[in-house]
């Protein structure tokens, strides 16, 4: 049968356990290689770096979510999912505190409404 059984991990079909997932997704992975921009200020660079980290961990969470949808009994995947979800939550809180809202409800109490502030670029304008 092409599809792996519910109790085995597709990342390493030799092993009946899910341990290889942890190796394939590292919390401390380096951000994706990017061009150095001489004009960018250090602050812009650190914002970009943090956003890339959020995208990286966010993608791992999305992908593990799909894996767990069809493998709800895999304890290793669930453990990694909850660990990365919590890492993602704190990375997002850090980003919001430093650079502004990711969701409308992240906006602070200072007027004008930060969600539509011209200082916070939309993702296709960054």
């Amino acid at each position, binding site marked *: 049968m092409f599809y792996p059984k519910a109790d085995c991990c597709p990342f390493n079909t030799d092993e009946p356990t899910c341990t290889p997932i942890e190796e394939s997704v590292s919390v401390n992975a380096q951000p994706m290689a990017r061009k150095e921009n001489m004009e960018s200020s250090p602050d812009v660079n650190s914002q970009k770096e943090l956003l890339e980290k959020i995208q990286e961990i966010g993608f791992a969470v999305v992908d593990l979510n799909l894996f767990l949808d069809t493998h709800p009994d895999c304890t290793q995947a669930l453990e990694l999912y909850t660990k990365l979800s919590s890492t993602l939550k704190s990375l997002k809180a850090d980003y919001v505190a430093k650079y502004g809202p990711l969701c*409308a409800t992240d906006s602070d109490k200072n007027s004008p409404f930060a*969600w*539509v*502030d*011209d200082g*916070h670029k*939309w993702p*296709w304008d960054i």
Partner: protein
Amino acid sequence: MWDYERKLMYPVKIKNPNPALAKMVIAQYGGPDGELGASLRYLSQRFTMPDSVTKGLLTDIGTEELAHLEMVGALVNQLTRGTNAKCVKESGFADYFINHSTGVYPANSNGSPFNAMAIAVSGDPITDLNEDLAAEQKARATYDNILRLSDDPDVNDVIKFLRAREIAHYQRFGEALRRVEEKLTDNNKFYMNK
């Protein structure tokens, strides 16, 4: 990107199946003035809006329309539950049923599949915002027609909520249009080319 919340924006709890009514309501799922088209229209137009306020408004209304799409889908699903062959034939639902059973397919009430020809994305903020104002009124008029023909209070309660949201969106789009127009007269008639 988007996160999904496992709840409806407004509760949908229909007691009595009614495939004939499902066929009318589905107009707001996949019809020309339905929620799918609304969402696709605003989420596509937002890229070329001239300022953060208008980009934000189109993002937020486009997102809310997806929540409405889910509610209309829930209405169609609940109205076609527990039906039988006799009921399907007598309710005029047979032509839909033959292709889709009780699946929720994005089509108009006459069976035409969803078509992006029903929406416009011009890349021009004045043009697009005027289209959006018209779109909200067309959706409101469709909900009015459903209310004229439906006698199910459970369905009508949900339809009245959705109808009220069309009016709220119309108001916000009007404000956004006025804002963009004011910017255009602000010593820079090429503002929108930014």
